[in-house]
């Protein structure tokens, strides 16, 4: 297990409002005026080769709570983590001192190629050993906990010997990493792979969850009657009702946690994103007020 201590100038417990992903088309707008959201999450890969955007981001970081969500640190790759990329991410993290640094339970690199997708891993002992080793390496490089996000699944492996929730729980035990629970991914994966999303949430180690994600999914058209209907984690639409319902259940189970709205494709206006964040805030407030004694009449 890597020996890392929580280290950020921000206290997650103080982040009361939902956040949104900050994408390049919105960067200058956000830099010009304080965004009406609790926090912002960036993909570091958007800033590593864009010095101007990085400069603007560093300015935003002096006024807003930021989180870093990497898509290129491939902890599931059999060939190991891309150390050059990791060092570039670490350098940016050190400049930003974000609330969280997170990534995916997936692999993206093979034989020197970056496959630009989050590919599934089998859930077995060997994969667990490998992923734990890589998470340790990432946490040692960062000097802080790394949050691992559950994937959106379309296929599984016959050789898997444990469930995804069991795998993540064991990974937390071995490495001290934390979890980013993507509630929408839970719903997408459960629908695609045929299990109960509520049981999945219940099986996660609640104390290890540091952050929640919500993103829109799309239904893939069935080419013919013999095909399955698939939900695709597209991040190109508003949050669906089933995902909101699962979010409410998650909050009841784990308590209030920093929540982020992911909308990366068919990007709407920034104000539209903040509307989704406001919906998350309303739902969180409603859950928090459940079971509260009514104020006595005066």
């Amino acid at each position: 297990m890597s020996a890392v201590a929580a280290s950020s100038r921000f206290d997650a417990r103080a982040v009361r409002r939902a956040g949104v992903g900050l994408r390049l088309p919105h960067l200058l707008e956000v830099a010009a005026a304080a965004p009406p959201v609790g926090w912002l999450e960036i993909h570091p890969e958007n800033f590593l080769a864009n010095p101007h955007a990085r400069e603007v981001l560093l300015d935003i970081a002096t006024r807003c709570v930021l989180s870093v969500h990497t898509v290129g640190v491939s902890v599931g790759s059999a060939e190991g983590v891309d150390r050059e990329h990791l060092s570039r991410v670490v350098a940016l993290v050190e400049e930003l001192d974000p609330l969280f640094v997170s990534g995916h339970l997936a692999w993206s690199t093979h034989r020197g190629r970056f496959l630009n997708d989050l590919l599934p891993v089998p859930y077995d002992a060997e994969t667990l050993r490998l992923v734990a080793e890589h998470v340790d390496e990432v946490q040692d490089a960062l000097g802080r906990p790394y949050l691992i996000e559950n994937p959106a699944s379309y296929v599984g492996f016959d050789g898997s010997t444990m469930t995804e929730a069991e795998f993540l729980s064991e990974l937390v035990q071995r490495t001290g990493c934390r979890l980013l629970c993507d509630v929408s991914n839970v719903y997408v994966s459960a629908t695609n792979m045929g299990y109960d999303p509520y049981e999945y949430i219940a099986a996660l180690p609640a104390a290890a969850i540091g952050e929640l994600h919500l993103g829109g999914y799309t239904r893939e058209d069935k080419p013919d009657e013999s095909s399955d209907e698939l939900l695709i984690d597209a991040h190109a639409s508003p949050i669906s009702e089933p995902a909101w319902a699962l979010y409410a259940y998650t909050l009841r189970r784990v308590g209030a946690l920093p929540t982020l709205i992911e909308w990366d494709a068919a990007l709407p206006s920034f104000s539209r994103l903040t509307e989704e964040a406001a919906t998350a805030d309303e739902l969180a407030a409603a859950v928090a007020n459940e079971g509260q004694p009514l104020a006595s009449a005066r």
Partner: protein
Amino acid sequence: MRGGRDPHARLEVHVRHYETSLVTALHMKFPATQWLVGSELVAAAARAYVHARPPNRPCIAEYGRTFPVFLAQFARGRGLPYLRMFTELELAAGETATAIGLPPLEWSEVAKAGAERLLDCTAGVQPGTRYLRSRWRVDELMKIYLSGSAPERFVVAAAQACIEIRGARGELRIIRLDRATFAFRAALAARRTIEDSVARALRHEPQFDAGAALRDAVQSGLLTSLHLHSGGGEP
């Protein structure tokens, strides 16, 4: 594998995302080229490119450096001999516009070096600077694109163009230089000594005024620093 009736068919989700996401990235990187030759040709070339030249780094903003060459080969026979240089120009413009500008070198610092030591110096150049030598006047074509108004007909002149591309923080300038000044400035940008850079310019123009060229480079804000070549550090 498992997943629904045909898990192997579900792998198509990942294959599609790989291709679509990278083709989209190339579309966003080369909008001027799409304007020039049409989005269909660029899309077809991009689909071929992402399989022939897959990325090897996670930072997709850095992907596509060899697309200009690939696209030109893909489009061979379509009567677009200037295509590669136009796309190279677009690539350079995109890279420079996202750079940040550094404080420019002051002439007083150059004067302090002294003529003899100056020849042994190399110069730092603004990070958002690129040099492109083209057999076609693609800079004129790019300026038409950037102006947003295209004439009914335009002939791309088959004549050499020595192009300096300078940009920072979203701003961009495309400047055609004479051959000697181009050789001088491109050599400075390649970290050649001032003496070597002047020599390269003189090959194109025996009357090249090195002093005036250096002063122009400084006054235009191109240079950011001076370094004594033999020993390193400041002169």
